[in-house]
């Protein structure tokens, strides 16, 4: 517990992370049909169902084995996503959360800045795993602007959500260079990337978890 009032106000404890992941799961559930529809245009029409299954497993695991720290919550969620999603987004989102969780260590509370740094490490790990760069029409086009917008206070969570959303929208005119959509070449242009869209949902859920 910190003695400084502003630090207490902005401290993110384990229950914040549970609220974030639960809000993300609800959002994915709500938007599953849209994600699948986007994926049917340039992918194999399973992104919504895959993400829904993965995040349902996350909420179930959070209830069954409540994590003891923010880092443990993210590692638990990442592990569930890798094992339950069944598509490429599983290892990618799993790596994002697991790497961020490891960066947070076993601290009982973290600052928004520590969360921002941890998510940056997670996004870098995703880029390395998938070999993609911004502009390739992938989830990174939402995630990179999001971590750029994250900062030292919880108000930056709203900005990150908006930046991710804008990043997802910006994938529409892009040519897909990674994953199954890249087989389509020019025909991938004109469609919003499903992975960038689900990334924006997950980032937007951060602000919902703030109390």
């Amino acid at each position, binding site marked *: 517990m910190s003695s400084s009032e502003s630090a207490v106000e902005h401290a993110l404890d384990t229950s914040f992370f549970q609220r974030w992941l639960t809000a993300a799961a609800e959002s994915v559930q709500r938007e599953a049909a849209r994600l699948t529809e986007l994926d049917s245009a340039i992918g194999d029409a399973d992104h919504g169902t895959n993400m829904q299954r993965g995040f349902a497993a996350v909420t179930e695991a959070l209830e069954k084995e409540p994590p003891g720290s923010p880092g443990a919550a993210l590692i638990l969620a990442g592990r569930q996503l*890798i094992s339950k999603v069944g598509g490429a987004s599983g*290892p990618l989102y799993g790596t994002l959360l697991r790497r961020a969780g490891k960066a947070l260590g076993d601290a009982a509370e973290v600052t928004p800045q520590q969360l921002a740094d941890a998510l940056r490490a997670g996004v870098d790990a995703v880029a390395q*795993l998938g070999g993609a760069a911004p502009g390739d029409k992938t989830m990174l086009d939402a995630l990179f602007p999001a971590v750029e917008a994250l900062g030292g206070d919880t108000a930056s969570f709203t900005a990150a959500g908006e930046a991710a959303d804008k990043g997802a929208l910006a994938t529409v005119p892009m040519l897909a260079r990674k*994953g199954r959509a890249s087989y389509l070449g020019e025909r991938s242009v004109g469609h919003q990337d499903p992975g960038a869209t689900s990334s924006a949902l997950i980032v937007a859920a951060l602000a919902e978890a703030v109390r």
Partner: protein
Amino acid sequence: MTQDSGEKLVGVVVVSHSGEVAESVARMATALAGGGTAPVRAAGGTPDGGFGTSEELIREAAYAVDQGAGVAILVDLGSAVLTVKALLAEEDELPEGSRLVDAPLVEGAVAAVVTASTGADVDTVAGAAAEAYDYRKV
């Protein structure tokens, strides 16, 4: 087949989006390796029998073939590649000496099982599988 010196052999795991493909490639590789003695396991599809990649099945298969000499993992595409890479990046998820082999699935699996059955180490097994890329068919 008569080799029985207690020698540790490299294990081979065949990962595909399809359970049938993985099973079939694993069986074919063993058969074409003359009933090779190297342990081979398939990790195909999702646990419920659908198409996809299961880290659970991959981990099970890797530990099942692990004799302590390393495990050569052959994959088809997309999430199969990413899942194995993600598991390897975590360091404690797969048996020590596990390697993602950069090779075509079918040809690579045959070369891997043949080479592993000779008692070669995991680098040699991975190298033999990767050589399959150099064999032009036309």
